[in-house]
């Protein structure tokens, strides 16, 4: 590519918004790339992307010029980004989930008070993973969103219902007792191995 086309590629790549043609013209003037005019360089860049087989293309929009990902790739990209998300929850996310499981419905402020740090991003992530959902709105100022766990949450931990979670004060024992890694044995209800169905 010509020097000007390369410069335009870099500039269009780095700009957060479409670059107005006047700005490009100023650049072209500064670059002073011999015979190559702005129009020639833009055409060169566009043809390069089109004919050489690229994942991006040069587009003229209302505000100017812009390099965009070709639309046929967007879904594959999005899927891959999602699929590649970490398969484990961070310690902070697990703690937040634990608080919600035991205190639901619970608002963000209360969660943050317990953990002592902000919970906004974690709540968003847990929500995206369908482990929690907004189950109600609280009383009081701004009617805060209240979170609760979802059926996916139960599924994830192989719980039939929330009551299968051990009591807080049984935890010390539940945690000490050896158990298989897979959550098949249910800690709280040992008497006959079955927990009561939910009341709802």
């Amino acid at each position, binding site marked *: 590519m010509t020097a000007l086309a390369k410069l335009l590629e870099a500039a269009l*790549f*780095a*700009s*957060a*918004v479409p670059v107005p043609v006047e700005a490009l013209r100023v650049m072209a003037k500064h670059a002073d790339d011999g015979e190559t005019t702005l129009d020639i360089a833009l055409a060169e860049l566009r043809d390069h992307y089109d004919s050489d087989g690229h994942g991006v293309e040069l587009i003229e929009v209302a505000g100017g010029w812009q390099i*965009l*990902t070709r639309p046929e790739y*967007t879904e594959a990209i*999005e*899927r891959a980004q*999602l*699929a590649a*998300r970490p*398969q*484990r*929850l961070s310690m902070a996310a*697990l*703690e937040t*989930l*634990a*608080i919600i*499981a*035991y*205190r639901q419905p619970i608002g963000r402020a209360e969660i943050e*008070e*317990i*953990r*002592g740090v902000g919970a906004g991003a974690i709540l968003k992530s847990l929500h995206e*993973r*369908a*482990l929690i959902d907004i189950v109600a709105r609280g009383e009081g100022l701004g009617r805060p969103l209240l979170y609760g766990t979802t059926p*996916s949450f139960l599924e*994830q*931990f192989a*719980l*039939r219902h*929330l*009551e299968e*979670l051990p*009591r*807080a*004060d049984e*935890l*010390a024992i*539940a*945690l000490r007792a050896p*158990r298989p*890694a897979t959550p098949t044995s249910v*800690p*709280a*209800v040992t*008497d*006959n191995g*079955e*927990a*009561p*169905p*939910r*009341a*709802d």
Partner: protein
Amino acid sequence: MDDVALADPPRMMTPSGSEVFVVELAEFSGPLDLLLSLIRDEQIDIYDIPIARIAEQFLGRISSLKLDEAADYLEMAARLVRIKAQMLLPRREGEDVWDDPRAELVRRLLEYQQVREVVDVLERRSEERRGRFARAYTQQAIQVPVPGALRISLPELLSAVDRVLRLARKPHIHDVVPRALDVDGAIGIVRALLAIRSHAQWKDVLPRKAEPWEVLSLLLALLELAKLGELRLAQPRPFAAFEISRDSTGEAA
């Protein structure tokens, strides 16, 4: 302290005759930086610092600082003076091992010097990176509902609960034991019911729209009473409703 982005702002300007020192001080990122630079200027062996001399120079350099800016420097100055005094103590006769009062200072200086070496690396890297731009335009993401595979187990969740509980037990944070479990209350209800009926169903003792804590309270009450031998729990088939029966001594199981 200064903002991260402001590289070495000229913090202190005094009209005294010590402008040279003042300007230099603004360039130091802390007392260790100043100390290290003194040692370097004087070409002193870091393992054998002439404390008296260095302390004097250090005090001279910081004399022009305003007190609120100088707290960290003054702390170091006090430390140097203390070491100086310790150096003057006569060593005891026949003492083989001498605890060099400078040892801790030397360790800190070496550690700090390492930090500065890493800083050099970071500065180089950062300059390299600052010379390039990343993509700034972000396209509107389309929402593809793909629940990412998640590998977490119940024990992990329970450990998190445990951590939260320990966290919550600190006095200034309020208690996180599940919302006011009322096991005693539930025991009372079950006992009252079984006083008039010998058999009951799970749903008989539970309010219609029970909250999770009520369910949990009742469950724990039943388990407690079963343990005490006051009732029996049975389930005709998996997932079926519980049957609760009085287990008094006069009755068969």
